[in-house]
Every structure is written in structure tokens, then in C-alpha cells.
């Protein structure tokens, strides 16, 4: 009887592990991405600023030209541990200089590394997953024009169980990319704003509260309504058109904030948003207006009261 039980337990454990292994196999594209899309570096620069790559992959506090040195090493201190953004400069050994476009697509859209591992969702591939293939190819071409930086990647500092990379596979299954329900009525400017805010700008990653005590995916029912800062103390503001958020801001107020860093009361941008706003200031005004229009069109949501 005991032997039988041990056998059963062993079988269940083996099957369980096999299922876990099978469920968490990192996904990849077949190699058609690089064949179909030719990138344009000049167009990729706008994608680069809109996507905010430099805010994590350049040195912390980087300004102006330093934002184009993508050697990584920028620490992201979160409740689950400290992540260090990797080197994405075109250095062949330390960066992504030897990657194919397909490798890049797997990384940015699926969160899978060239050697078949999961990236942690501190890298916002959940938002990037619906980036257009053309934008992706353009971005890749632009990054290839930047300076190769010879900084080796620093391993993340994560406690058990977060240090199990396959666990991220379960996270990806449990929290697949969900788009919030925003009716654009087919308006081209709103659609553009939606794409910039939801996908490239990945604004929801910080401005949308997360499920499962902050460890889950973005709570689309509370889309962009703010919450605790993922890093350290402080709050991320509500940017919905609710009175807890941007109700009193006009569309042009929002566009001006993204351009200048000033609120309608001429308070200034602060914290980690300083770097984000500096990226946004490099976009054409039409894009900033589109983002502002989208932010005025989303459902107003009250801020969640935290004790």
C-alpha cells in the first residue's frame, strides 16, 4: 500500500512537472518576421522615443545624448526584488548587435530571449505585444545605428520563488495581454492615441493598478486610474478623466504637459515621469494631441482608496 502511494505520488509529481514544463515553454515566432519587414532607422527614432526604451536601458538619470547609450544597468527596485535592465545597445557581445529581427520580435512582443528563456514582465512586452511589425522593424534598425556599449549585463537580484524563470511562463499564461474596452468609434486620431498610450507608451504598466496585490496583470476595469508606485513609496497618479484624475485638464493641457512637463497650474513633472516626459517631448505635436484626446476619451475611474 505504501509502495503504491509512493509510486502514485512520484507519478503525479513527474506529470505535474511535465505539465508545468510544457505550459511554460517560451513562445517564439517562426522566422518570417525578418523576411517580410525592412526597417527604416529614421522612422524608428520616433518609435524609440514613444516606447520609452531609454528610461530603463540608459543609465538612471540619463539626459539628452546619454539617453542613446543603451548599456543597461539601470536598477528597478520593486517589491519582488531588484531588476537590472539589460544592455540593448548594438554591441555584438554585450548588447543585441548579433540579434536577428526575429530575435528582437521574440523579445519585444513575446518576452522570449534568443536562448529561449522568459524575460520578466518588468520588461513591458505585455504592452508591446500588439506593436505593429513595421514599427518593430523600424525600431530595430534605429537601435542598430546607436553606439555599442561594452557593459556586461547584471543579473537580477530576486528572492525565491521569483528567481525561477519558468515561473514567468505561468505568469504569462495567467495574465495575458488584455486591451481595455475603449470605444474610438473608428476615429483615426483616437486610434493613434490609443496605440501610443496603450502599446508604445505602455502607460498602463505604471498608471493602471495590478491584480493579485500588485503582482498580477493590469486591471483593465480600472484602466489608467493610478495606484501605488511600483518602485519605492509614493503614488502613481490617476490619468483618467475622473475628478480624481485629469477631469479639469483640457486636451491641450495634457498635450502641453507631455511637451513641456508643466501641469495647468505650472507645477512640474517629477519622479520617474521626468524621463518619460523628456521622451514624449521628442514626438510630433500631432502625436501628443492624439494621446491627449485618447486620455480624455477613456472611461473616468475613481482612484482606489488604499489604507
Amino acid at each position, binding site marked *: 500500500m505504501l509502495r503504491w502511494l509512493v509510486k502514485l505520488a512520484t507519478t503525479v509529481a513527474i506529470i505535474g512537472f511535465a505539465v508545468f514544463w510544457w505550459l511554460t515553454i517560451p513562445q517564439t515566432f517562426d522566422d518570417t518576421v525578418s523576411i517580410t519587414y525592412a526597417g527604416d532607422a529614421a522612422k524608428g527614432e520616433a518609435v524609440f522615443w514613444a516606447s520609452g526604451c531609454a528610461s530603463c536601458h540608459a543609465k538612471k538619470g540619463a539626459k539628452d545624448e546619454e539617453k542613446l547609450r543603451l548599456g543597461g544597468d539601470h536598477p528597478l527596485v520593486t517589491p519582488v526584488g531588484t531588476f537590472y535592465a539589460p544592455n540593448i545597445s548594438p554591441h555584438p557581445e554585450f548588447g543585441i548587435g548579433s540579434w536577428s529581427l526575429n530575435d528582437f520580435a521574440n523579445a519585444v512582443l513575446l518576452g522570449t530571449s534568443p536562448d529561449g528563456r522568459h524575460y520578466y514582465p518588468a520588461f513591458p512586452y505585455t504592452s508591446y505585444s500588439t506593436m505593429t511589425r513595421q514599427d518593430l522593424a523600424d525600431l530595430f534598425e534605429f537601435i542598430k545605428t546607436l553606439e555599442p556599449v561594452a557593459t556586461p549585463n547584471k543579473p537580477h537580484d530576486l528572492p525565491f520563488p521569483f528567481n525561477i524563470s519558468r515561473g514567468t511562463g505561468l505568469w504569462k499564461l495567467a495574465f495575458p495581454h488584455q486591451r481595455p474596452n475603449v470605444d474610438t468609434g473608428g476615429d483615426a486620431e483616437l486610434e493613434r492615441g490609443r496605440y501610443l498610450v496603450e502599446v508604445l507608451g505602455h502607460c498602463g504598466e505604471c498608471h493602471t493598478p495590478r491584480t493579485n496585490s500588485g503582482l498580477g496583470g493590469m486591471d483593465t476595469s480600472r484602466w489608467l486610474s493610478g495606484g501605488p508606485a511600483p518602485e519605492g513609496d509614493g503614488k502613481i497618479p490617476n490619468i483618467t478623466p475622473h475628478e480624481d484624475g485629469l477631469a479639469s485638464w483640457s486636451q491641450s493641457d495634457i498635450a502641453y504637459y507631455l511637451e513641456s512637463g508643466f501641469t495647468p497650474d505650472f507645477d512640474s*513633472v*517629477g*519622479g520617474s515621469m*521626468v524621463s518619460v516626459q523628456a521622451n514624449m517631448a521628442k514626438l510630433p505635436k500631432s502625436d501628443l494631441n492624439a494621446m491627449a484626446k485618447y486620455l480624455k476619451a477613456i472611461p473616468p475611474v475613481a482612484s482606489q482608496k488604499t489604507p
Partner: protein
Amino acid sequence: MNKSLKYMIFSVFSAAILTTTSLANADAIADRKAKMKEVGKNFGIIGKMVKGENPFDSKAALAAYMAIGEAGTGFGELFPEGSETGGETTASPKIWSDREGFQAKGKAFGEDLVAAIQAGEPADLDALKASFGSVAKNCKACHEGYRVKKE
């Protein structure tokens, strides 16, 4: 511009010796908030001209720069030990752990502000846009690391 005003503004933002520990900390928090509000109000006067919301007025612009200097007087001294928390302060703990860095930001602000005041009444809107950009960049430079929004 007279020299005494210039030195007054320099002393405002540059490294201040903390002789104010006897000051009730609650007052320090309330005072620095009031000063910052005044600074913001006057930035708004210029900012609205720059933004095109209000017509260009060179006299009002210079007066606003001077008012920012006045409101900034003693600002750096309003962060004594013991005033790290309370009163819904948005001051970051970094002000106390990295006092030197914090004061360097204040000094840079003071220098750019003095330059804007010394230039006198701005000749036209473009001149105002240039001086505004130069002074206003200091707001986010300091708020990036030394302010934490709680709400």
C-alpha cells in the same frame, strides 16, 4: 538690477547653514509649501504667456521672476532634521540623505533665475520663451529626485 538683490537671491538657493532647527518642524513644512505655491503661481504668470494663453507682457514677466526670487528666499533652510514627514509633505527622504545634491539643484536654479532677472524686461515673446526654458528646467531637475508624490 541692484547688487543686494542679486546676493539675496544667491543666498536663497545656495547652501544654507541649518540654523533653523529650533523652528517648529510643522511650520517648516507649511512654510515651504506656501513658498512653493508662490513660486508655482508666478511661474504660471510667465508660463501662460509662453503657452499662448495670455498676451505677452514684459513688465509682468520680469515682476514674476522677481517674485519667484523673493518666494525662494530661505527655501533651502526649510528642511531641518525632523521635518522629513508629516503635514502631507511631498519632500523625498533623499533631501536629508543627499543634502549636497539637493542644494546643488537649488544653486543651479538660483543662478538661472538671477540670469533671467539680470537680463531685464524680455524684449519679445521669443526672449521670454528662452529665459523661461532656462529657469523652468530646474523645476523638473529637482522634482525628479527630491519630491515624492503621495496622492
